[in-house]
């Protein structure tokens, strides 16, 4: 933890660079062909509020280094969160030792500039970090979190409690150094607030949650979070089952974004190359019946996954994956790009210093239309407006493509709300989902889930709704 939760990043950044450079010096004396050091320092606060009391308050201030080494075409990896000299020494030895048993690959070497698809400098680093973040004290943050509870309780008489209200922020420094001469760093700030509201009417309970995200705590829109969490909770009071049928569904933007996230997972080139993607061999095919555009943009101004370079130092850019419904490309890091004889799209991702780079999304979204939500609901006429889903992890098999998840929301008849629904499932498969997506709205919203995923509301036909 830091002596002062407000201070830090500037000083920490320097520290991190010092550790990275020091480790690089150690590596230069080792019998390895190439190496890469990924350093991450993060300062964060987590605050949980219950009944206007600070239930938990935690401070964290942590640093870690991950070492990727290449030797005779083999790769080894090790990380440590203990930055004492002897520990770093031990960790490097372990990375070298780990390389011995991994497979020899002709593509195992550090990224080269000519393999970059995008040029450097597309991201304004000032957008990733808010100086205002530093001005916010721990007391200010507690106040913001408590404020959310106060606003929420005033929204509706049926609100009986808040089972979970948390505030979390993060000040992160990333530093990547490799033996090919790359040395880059960037700094990000983010603040997150979340609540889950319980409402009650008679013996019926209903929960609804919502969240807000911003680069600095003061920008968190607690009013909007409270409004939505309460709405999602009280609107579903008195929910019942519906008769099983094949029908139309209208997905709320956050629900839609979760489905878009499933599609994102099988666009990673490694998944495709290993035969685990339904999109394998389908470049140039019209996957969506509609003319939808899906984009991965690591440079998006407001995007929380924006950064100047990816997990192995390759510049981020804007990649159009589906152009008017046609699959144009997969997402690549350098290893998978070499295999396909193409360029890296800058999609090497690392969730922390604890793992070697994998392939994944950054800001990933489906481009909104101009159709309003009201128009979508009228267009659907009759069907299930899905406000929340449960069981995405257990209910979606991204490899086989089967989708079956729990859902709750509102039954729509003649374009207007009829009654709330719960304990039903919606089921389809990934390719049918793409084919049956009829129309999308203008109301795009983003959620953090692996990357930063955005979608407007979606109207889909021919989905199985299972109830009784």
């Amino acid at each position, binding site marked *: *933890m830091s*002596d002062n939760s407000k201070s830090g990043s500037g000083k920490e950044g320097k520290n991190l660079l010092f550790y990275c450079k020091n480790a690089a010096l150690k590596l230069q004396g080792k019998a390895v062909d190439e190496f890469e050091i990924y350093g991450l320092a993060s300062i964060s606060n987590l605050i949980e509020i219950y009944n206007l*009391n600070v*239930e*938990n*308050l935690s*401070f*964290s201030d*942590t*640093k870690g280094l991950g070492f990727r080494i290449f030797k005779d075409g083999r790769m*080894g*990896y090790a*990380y440590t*969160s*203990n930055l*004492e000299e002897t520990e770093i020494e031990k*960790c490097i030895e*372990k990375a070298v*030792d*780990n390389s*011995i*048993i*991994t*497979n020899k690959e002709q593509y195992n070497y550090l990224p080269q500039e000519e393999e970059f698809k995008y040029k450097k400098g597309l991201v304004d680093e000032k957008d990733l970090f808010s100086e205002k973040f530093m001005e916010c004290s721990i007391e200010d943050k507690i106040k913001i979190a408590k404020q959310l509870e106060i606003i929420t309780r005033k929204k509706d008489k049926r609100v*009986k409690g808040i*089972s*979970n209200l948390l505030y979390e922020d993060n000040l992160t420094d990333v530093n990547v150094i490799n033996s090919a001469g790359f040395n880059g760093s960037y700094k990000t700030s983010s603040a997150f607030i979340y609540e*889950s509201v*319980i409402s009650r009417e008679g013996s019926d*309970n209903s*929960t609804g949650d919502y969240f807000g995200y911003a680069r600095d705590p003061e920008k968190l829109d607690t009013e909007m979070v409270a409004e939505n969490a309460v709405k999602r909770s009280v609107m579903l009071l008195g929910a019942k089952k519906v*008769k*099983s049928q*094949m029908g139309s569904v209208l997905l709320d933007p956050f629900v839609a974004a979760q489905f878009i996230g499933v599609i994102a997972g099988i666009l990673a080139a490694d998944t495709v190359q*290993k*035969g*685990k993607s339904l999109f394998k061999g389908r470049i140039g095919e019209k996957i969506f019946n509609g003319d939808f555009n899906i984009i991965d943009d690591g440079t998006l101004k407001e995007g929380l996954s924006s950064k100047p370079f990816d997990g192995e130092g390759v510049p981020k850019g804007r990649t159009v994956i589906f152009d008017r419904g046609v699959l144009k490309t997969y997402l690549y890091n350098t290893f998978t790009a070499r295999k396909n004889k193409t360029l890296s799209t800058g999609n090497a991702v690392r969730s922390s210093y*604890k793992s070697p780079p994998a392939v994944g999304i950054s800001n990933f979204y489906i481009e909104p239309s101009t159709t309003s939500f009201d128009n979508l609901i009228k267009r659907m006429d009759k069907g299930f407006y899905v406000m929340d889903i*449960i*069981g995405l992890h*257990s*209910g979606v*098999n991204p*490899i*086989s*493509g*089967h989708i*079956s*998840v*729990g859902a*709750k929301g509102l039954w729509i008849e003649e374009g207007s709300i009829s009654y709330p629904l719960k*304990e*039903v*499932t*919606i*089921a389809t498969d990934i390719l049918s989902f793409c084919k049956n997506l009829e129309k999308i709205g203008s109301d795009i919203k983003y959620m953090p889930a692996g990357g930063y995923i955005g979608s407007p509301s979606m109207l889909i036909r021919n989905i*199985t709704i*299972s*109830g*009784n």
Partner: protein
Amino acid sequence: MIGLKLSKKVLNELLGKGVEFSEIFVQNRILNNLKLEDSKIESSSSGFELGCGLRIISGDSTYYAYVDSLSSDKILNAAKVLRSAVCSKLRKKTLDLSERKKPSEKAIDRHPFSVIQEDKKSFLLEVDFAARNHNPAIIQVTSNLSDLVENTYIANSEGFFCSDELVMVYLSVNAVARKGSEIRTGYKSIAKTKGYEIFFIKKPSDISIEASTIAVKMLDAENAPVGTMPVVLGPAFGGVIFHEACGHGLEADAVLKDASVYKGKIGKEIASPMVTAVDDATIPYHWGSYAFDDEGYPSEKNVLIENGILRSYIFDYKTAKKMKMKQTGNGRRQSFRDIPIPRMSNTYIENGSEDPSVIIKSVKSGVYAKEFAGGQVDPATGDFVFGISEGYIIENGNICAPIKNATLIGNGPEILKKIDAVGNDLDFAPGFCGKGGQSVSNEVGQPTILVSEITVGGTKVQENDNE
């Protein structure tokens, strides 16, 4: 890991005025992970994590901080800063610490440190060979082999300290089968709190063949049915139903926040009288087992439901104190960076008396769900889901065609009462459970059970049902 003198100093430093509890949690972890895919060792990585978490409880509030180091200066400084977030004055009470001894030592035959890289590699190559050799339809095998050696030291202001070493080995296999444009998967894992001797009893190839068999069988799967119907849940992983439908709702933090449907139900009948359910972290070598929980409380066998009657919740230190109950040894945390919260360990439904084949025979038309992909619950409403990864149609008491992945959805309190038969073939399955952003090792278990009615979320709408 750190001396007694330093422990006392830190605990005293944390004990400000109005602080009723202080704790130091030291952890050293060394972990290795090997991943096989495309018949190759794709990555081999290791991690070293060493640090110390500091906790203060004052009134209803918990304050937490940690350092990634065991340097006494850093720990003491962090303690001072953390305490000053609560109060400025120190309490004039000095602590004495006595050791809390482990009830028994569990032998480890093949400690991860003694297993060379080449041997680990050969386990994974054995997995790959067995799967591909099993059936030519297998087009991909992904397998992870992980080991972890964890040393912990805990001391707190209640006046005790304890230490422990935990050894864990985990192997998972995901097999992918293909026929034409149809792709299916099969998943199996083995995980124990012991060393590489886990492969003496069950070979890596055994796990691999089990996973491949599922993937290949599922190639012929038809669309799963829709609507409510009787479902027979197979042993072992079927226990995920209890974990989701009930277990999370019994965790005392949810109860205290009035966010559990099982609040105020102790002593009341909440399940079918056939159901006795237990959380037991003492079962030797099981994946969710430990000698002490992450607050240094000795693990124990805790009967949650006895013949349908709710007997106990799942407690950590703070929730037990607040509800004036005894701790149950379920205070767990992901690492020294996290606050401990009430969590399940090995949670299972006890054996009943029925023969599993008789249970299946009793179903005229329904589903047999054998393997699962996990689940999720909203403890405040009790609404839960879990996904079938290997399932079959039951027709006239016979297991028939395999069905595609489908989610089961239900409400906890309602489903517990609809358990109509409990078999005598109790078995366990390891996994991970996430809560409040923390993932911990977990085991679920049960014998074969029959749920008289639950909603199956397939895609096959009956003709006459379709409007």
